[in-house]
Structure formats: structure tokens, C-alpha cells
């Protein structure tokens, strides 16, 4: 029996109450200018908010605590990066092929962190409620830190390996990097509520594990301790970002019944946009990691299908159903990575990382992970390509691919119910015909055609003469890619030569 009578004294404010004072008191009704002039973007999306104070702060972190916390985390991270550099940590990775996953991350993902910084800073200005404003501003700072710490973590590899020298520039120009770039620009040019649905909910909450876990576990499995430590340092931030994603959805759904169909359409759209973007991760997991963690299909089942079931069961109480075309993603999970890796093998001459055909041992793993599809559809293809290469006729695709107008991925995906037929969809708008890789991408275009007809499609731009010239070499120079160094197969690359020399030295001078 451990009860004692409560003391009679003034109760202190709880952290929640103190945080509420901090956030709520920073908002006021403006008088010099009407509120709708001060917050011009908050109404046009159709989302109705009746009571901004009903916003539940998803986390209660004051700026003061934030600085101290992040400062110490970064001190720890930079100490690890420093010791990684001093100890030549890059020599301890499983294989130099692993660095190609980092090239994809640095050129494809790190710039997205920076875009997220800009996006959150922007919407953090445009909400009427001080609660969401502060949450967005904090996340804007997180994202800037993530961009910086990622670049610093991976800069060590740039001293030794090719393709890491100008990620920011490449992100704006290289054909396949328009996939992540256009994804984020689509979100940043939407209204504030759609932006949060797109990035905080669909991306950070529903899909983030499918991006973060493969890269960070991939780093751990492949001996890249610097990148793993970056992962640890970002993890506590990610937990905050996910709760913001949940809160914004809940807030919109509870504020007005009329918000439900708008939110549903955004969830449909951003699920599909995010899923298409993740196809790059699928190939990374199944093909680019020398030591694999789990297959794309397994991670889709674990992180989307299982976790998503519980989430969408709860959301169904609000009248929200599972995202449209989730069943197509389930059908595609056994072929996605193989189709995407094949696209890159086709166009290795124009990629900022190296490609290769899977070894016999790797194909055994792929057969085991994809028993219904790999041996039937993809092993024969790799075998044929391998024979061609052995005869000195390595296959290069010499024409530029048709791109999907929405996701901007080359049209290499197959029909949901037929893995041997390329899926083509098209729609006409103002006398022009536009092409899509899927019903998901077509629906997105048809709902906002004026937005997507403005897409900067890399292939079109090359044909229009806007990308440095007509030859591959010209375009690559415009990309800031070093021809014959950054591109082509790993086999025969300067990366491979250097790595093999190091391994020979290691063998000659055993420690």
C-alpha cells in the first residue's frame, strides 16, 4: 500500500499546457491587413478549418531544447564521420559496388531533404494556426540539417569514388533524377494542406520505412558505419515527422466532413506518386547492395501491406479507404525491381552510377525471393545479356525512352495482370496526346492536366536541344558527368580498378 495524501499546493503547468501557451500565443487576428490577405493559400484547396485550436501539437519541443539536443547529436555524428575518415572506413565496406547505392542516395534523396526544407519553411508561413506553423518550421530546420549531414557523411566517398562530385547539379538535370525532383516539386507547388498530406502523411508516415530502412540497414549490412550513424542521428527526428503526418490528417478529417473526399483524393494521388518513386529503392535493395537485407517484395509486405492495414482500418472510421491502386502495387511487387534494374542496364551509358548483371549467386537469391517470377521472366533476360556481353556485344539501348508524363519514369512497367506486356496509357488534352505508365499516373494527370503539361521531361528536353547537344557525350557533359568514368558497367570502371588494387594491397600486407 503505497498511497500518500496529495500535497496541497499550486499545480505546475504540464509540458503540454506550457507548449500550448508557447504556440497559441504566437497567433493573433491581424488588423492592419485582413486575415485572408495575410494567409492567401489557406482556403483555395477547399479544406475547411473551424477551430485551429483543436490542433493537437504532435510533439512538444521548444526551440531551446531543440538546439541543445541537435547540437549534441551532431557532435556525436561528426566525431564518427571524422574517425571514419581517419581510419579509411571506405576500405571496410563489403564491395565497391555498394558505393553506387550511395551515389543514387546522394543525387536522388539528399536533394529531396533540401526540397523538404524549402517546402516546410513555405507552408510553415501559410497556416493560420500557430500549432501547425511551428511544427512545420521545426521540421524545415530538421530537413536542412538532414541535407547537410548526409552530404557531409558521404563526402568522404567522393575523395575516392566517381559520380559523387556534383549531386546538386545532377539532381536538376540528369534524366532519372527528374523522377524524385518532379515528385517533390509537385508537392511544393501544391497548397499547404496538400503538401502536408503528400510529404508528412503519405511519404513520411506511410512510405518512409521503405526508403529509410533499406538505405540505413543497407549501410549497416555493408560496413558503412558513417551512413549508419547518420541514420541514428536522424531517427529521433523521423519519429516527430511521422506524428506530424498523422496529426494533419486527423485534424483535416475531424474539422469538416467536406474535407474527407479532398483528403481521400490526395491520399490516392500521393500514395501512387510515392510508390512510383520508391521503384528506384526496389532496384537498390534487390540489385545494388552487395549484401542484401531483405527483398523489395518482403519489405513492401512488411512496411506497407501489414502496417498499412492497421492504419487504413483506423482511417476507415473517418470514411477514408485504402489508396486507389494499392492492389496494383501488390501485383507489381514481384517484378518491380527487375524491371527497373533492366531499364538502367539498358541506359548505363547515361547513368551517374555503374550497373552490372547479377552474379550466379545473386540470381540464386533472387530466385528464392521471387519464386514465381524471377526464373520465368528475368533470369533468361540476364542470361541473354550476359552472353551478348561475352561476345563483345554488350546491349545498349540506342534510342531515348518514352517517359511517363506524371512520374517521368521510362515506360518499362508491365500490365498489372501480364508481366510480359508493357503497360501503355494515354490521354488527350487540348489537342496533344500524353503518355503514362499506369492508370495511377494517368488519373493524376487527368485531374490536374494544366499542372502536368508543364512537366520538364528530360527526353523531350534533349530532343528540343535544351540539354547540351545531340550526342550522348554532349548531354553527359551538360549533366556534369564524366564520360567513361562515372557511367557504364562497374566491370572495367575506374572504381573497380581502384578497389581491386586496394584488395590486392590488403592481401599482400595482411594486418
Amino acid at each position: 500500500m503505497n498511497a500518500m495524501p496529495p500535497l496541497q499546493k499550486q499545480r505546475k503547468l504540464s509540458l503540454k499546457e506550457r507548449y500550448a501557451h508557447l504556440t497559441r500565443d504566437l497567433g493573433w487576428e491581424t488588423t492592419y491587413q485582413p486575415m485572408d490577405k495575410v494567409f492567401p493559400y489557406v482556403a483555395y484547396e477547399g479544406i475547411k478549418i473551424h477551430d485551429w485550436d483543436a490542433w493537437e501539437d504532435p510533439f512538444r519541443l521548444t526551440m531551446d531544447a531543440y538546439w541543445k539536443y541537435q547540437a549534441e547529436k551532431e557532435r556525436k555524428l561528426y566525431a564518427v564521420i571524422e574517425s571514419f575518415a581517419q581510419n579509411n572506413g571506405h576500405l571496410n565496406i563489403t564491395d565497391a559496388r555498394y558505393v553506387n547505392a550511395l551515389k543514387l542516395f546522394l543525387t536522388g534523396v539528399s536533394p529531396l531533404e533540401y526540397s523538404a526544407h524549402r517546402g516546410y519553411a513555405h507552408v510553415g508561413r501559410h497556416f493560420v494556426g500557430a500549432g501547425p506553423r511551428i511544427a512545420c518550421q521545426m521540421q524545415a530546420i530538421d530537413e536542412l540539417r538532414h541535407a547537410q549531414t548526409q552530404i557531409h557523411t558521404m563526402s568522404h566517398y567522393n575523395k575516392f569514388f566517381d559520380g559523387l562530385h556534383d549531386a546538386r547539379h545532377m539532381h536538376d538535370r540528369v534524366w532519372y533524377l527528374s523522377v524524385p525532383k518532379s515528385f517533390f516539386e509537385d508537392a511544393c507547388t501544391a497548397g499547404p494542406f496538400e503538401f502536408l498530406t503528400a510529404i508528412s502523411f503519405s511519404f513520411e508516415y506511410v512510405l518512409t520505412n521503405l526508403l529509410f530502412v533499406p538505405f540505413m540497414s543497407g549501410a549497416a549490412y555493408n560496413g558503412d558505419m558513417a551512413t549508419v550513424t547518420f541514420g541514428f542521428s536522424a531517427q529521433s527526428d523521423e519519429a516527430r515527422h511521422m506524428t506530424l503526418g498523422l496529426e494533419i490528417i486527423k485534424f483535416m478529417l475531424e474539422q469538416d466532413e467536406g474535407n474527407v473526399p479532398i483528403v481521400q483524393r490526395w491520399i490516392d494521388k500521393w500514395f501512387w506518386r510515392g510508390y512510383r518513386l520508391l521503384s528506384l529503392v526496389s532496384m537498390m535493395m534487390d540489385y545494388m547492395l552487395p549484401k542484401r537485407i531483405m527483398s523489395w517484395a518482403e519489405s513492401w509486405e512488411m512496411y506497407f501491406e501489414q502496417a498499412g492495414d492497421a492504419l487504413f482500418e483506423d482511417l476507415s472510421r473517418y470514411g477514408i479507404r485504402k489508396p486507389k491502386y494499392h492492389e496494383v502495387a501488390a501485383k507489381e511487387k514481384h517484378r518491380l525491381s527487375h524491371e527497373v534494374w533492366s531499364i538502367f542496364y539498358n541506359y548505363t551509358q547515361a547513368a551517374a552510377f555503374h550497373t552490372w548483371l547479377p552474379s550466379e549467386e545473386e540470381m540464386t537469391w533472387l530466385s528464392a525471393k521471387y519464386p514465381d517470377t524471377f526464373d520465368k521472366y528475368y533470369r533468361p533476360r540476364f542470361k541473354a545479356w550476359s552472353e551478348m556481353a561475352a561476345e563483345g556485344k554488350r546491349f545498349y539501348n540506342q534510342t531515348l525512352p518514352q517517359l511517363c508524363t506524371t512520374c517521368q519514369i521510362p515506360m518499362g512497367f508491365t500490365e498489372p495482370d501480364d508481366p510480359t506486356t508493357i503497360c501503355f496509357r494515354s490521354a488527350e488534352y487540348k489537342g496533344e496526346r500524353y503518355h503514362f505508365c499506369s492508370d495511377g499516373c494517368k488519373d493524376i494527370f487527368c485531374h490536374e492536366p494544366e499542372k502536368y503539361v508543364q512537366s520538364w521531361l528530360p527526353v523531350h528536353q534533349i530532343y528540343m536541344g535544351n540539354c547540351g547537344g545531340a550526342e550522348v557525350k554532349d548531354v553527359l557533359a551538360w549533366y556534369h558527368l564524366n564520360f567513361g568514368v562515372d557511367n557504364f558497367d562497374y566491370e572495367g570502371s575506374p572504381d573497380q580498378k581502384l578497389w581491386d588494387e586496394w584488395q590486392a594491397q590488403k592481401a599482400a600486407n595482411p594486418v
Partner: protein
Amino acid sequence: MSGTSYTLMVEPLGQAIKVAEGQTILDACLRGGIYLPYQCNHGLCSTCKISVIEGEVDLGDASPFALMDFEREEGRALACCARPLSDVTIEADIDVDPDARNCPVLDFEAEVVDIRPLARDIKGIWLDASAIDFEFQAGQYVQLRIPGVQGERAFSLANAPGGDRLELHVRRVPGGKGTEYLHDVLKVGDRLSVSGPYGRFYVRESSSLPMIFIAGGSGLSSPKSMVEDLLARGFEQKITLLHGVRQRQDLYYDDLFRRLAETHANFTYVPVLSDAQPEDRWTGETGFVHEAAVRLFDGMFRGHKAYLCGPPPMIEAGIRALMKGRLFDRDIHTESFLTKADDKAPQRSPLSQRM
């Protein structure tokens, strides 16, 4: 408990509990009826971070990534690994629930003083708790140890707080060892081991909103306690109790609630039969209890507090009906009556944590 113990003052509640030597702060709080948010329970996730305002603690195995150096210097600790080394005052990130009385959990033996059938498969059991100073909030439950049965079984208290007798409603679960013993073997004069009170299912009077109680079967127990308590204390807002059962013979305390409805203008009682028989000559509400609620409130529940108590499918259907009627989780309170066979509760996402 043997050896030294310390006093732990928990802010912002202003509540004090005892901590045994070697016991963690989290363990002491949970056992003392104070809920602290926690997750991993071994120093990694930092969900249970607290501030030590006064006194000395051993920080234990808190991970350097979960509890930073500067936080240690500022007197932060992880409750799941911190152990007091003196009397201690902590501050935790808890929402002060103005309606929580945090009654201490007691372990005691109580004598069975009455057993009566209440409905077709429900028995009422009355225990004498006069020997101890047992306090609880209407709606809470106790755990019983039943002779020959592994583990404990939870039963809501059906009497209003304040009396010497504890009233339990026990539905016979076919094939269920615990309830079969209580129905078939237990007799007046036996003694049962009880611990409690537990649970956060109690009325949130501080919001002073009209209340809706939806009960299914023997899930009437908690609402009975809550309604009797509210009416006895002169609660003035509207109170509506809907009780769903299958047939007339399953309905119990019908007379009691009809009487209360006659004598209290703010109380409405609606029994609902889902499977009325011709011989029941039933003229009242029929169908599922949540459907009756939708009819009664014209589908709009905004501006109420709702309390749901009963089997999981009834709770789920009730939540859906309430949310469709624009009442959300901060105003919906539930107590699911799981049987041992229901161990696999449906997986939930963090979205519905609060309910």
C-alpha cells in the same frame, strides 16, 4: 516490500507514491496508478523521459542516444531505468486528466456475501470490502484470482463508489474456465483474491457535456456504476443509457433504470433487443444498439461525451457510428470486454492510440 523505500513526488499531478529500493520510477508509477507514456521499457526510445526536480537518482542503462549528456546534466532521466537514491520529485510529460483520481491499487481478500442470477447467462456477485479502505472511480475494474485458473480475470465494478459491497456482473463464457467456476462452484462465504482498481474508463465530468452510455450485454456493469454515481451526485447534464441485448430474458436491471428515468428528468433509458421473440411482446427499440443510438440522436453526436462498454464488435460498430456522427476519439471512451479467447485483439495504428 522490504528494505528502504523512498517517496516519489510526481508533478504536475502533485501526487506522491512509494518506491522500493531498486524499483524503477516507471514501475513505481504504473503500480501506483499513474500512467507515464513509455514504449521500449529498456532505455532506448526515450519516450519516458522525465525531469528530476529534487533528489538523486541512478540513471541506470539509459542509452547515450536516447538520453543526451546535456540532458543528464540538466537532470533528465529515463523513467524506465532510473532508480531513486533518495526521496525524489519528478516532472513528467503527462496530460493532467482533471477527472482522474488515481486511486491506489490494493491487493486484498474479500468474502462473497451474495450471488444472484441477473439475466439468462449473467450472475451478480457481491463481495464484502468493508474491512479495507478501498476507493475507486465509477467505471473502473478489478482483477480476480479464481481458484484453479491460471492468471487473473478482469471484471468491472457495477456498484457506485462509496458502499461496502463490490458488485460484479459475470457472463458465463461457454467453455471459459474462470466464468464457469464463478457460475457453478463459487458460493456465499467463499473468499476471493482481488486487486484493483484499474482502468481509465471513468466519466469525464470536467467537460460538463451531455453523456451517452452504450452498453452491450454484461457491459452494463460499468455504465450502471457511472450512471448511479452521477445521478446520486446531482449531475445536471443529459444522460442517455442505451443497453443492447438479444432477447427480453437477457435484459437486466430494466426496472431499476426505468425507475431512475422516472425520477430524473435528465436521464433517458433505452433498452434495445436485437433478436426479440414473439413471446417477449417487445414494443421498444430493436436492432443493434448503435443503430438505436443513431436513430435516437438523428445521426449527429457532436457536443457529447460517449462511453462504450461491451464486446469488441459492439465497441467497433459504436465507434464507427459515433465518428460518422462527428464525435471523435477525445470524446469517446471505451472499455472492451475481451474474453480469454479474444487474446488476439485487432491490430491498431498509432492513429487510434487515445481510445
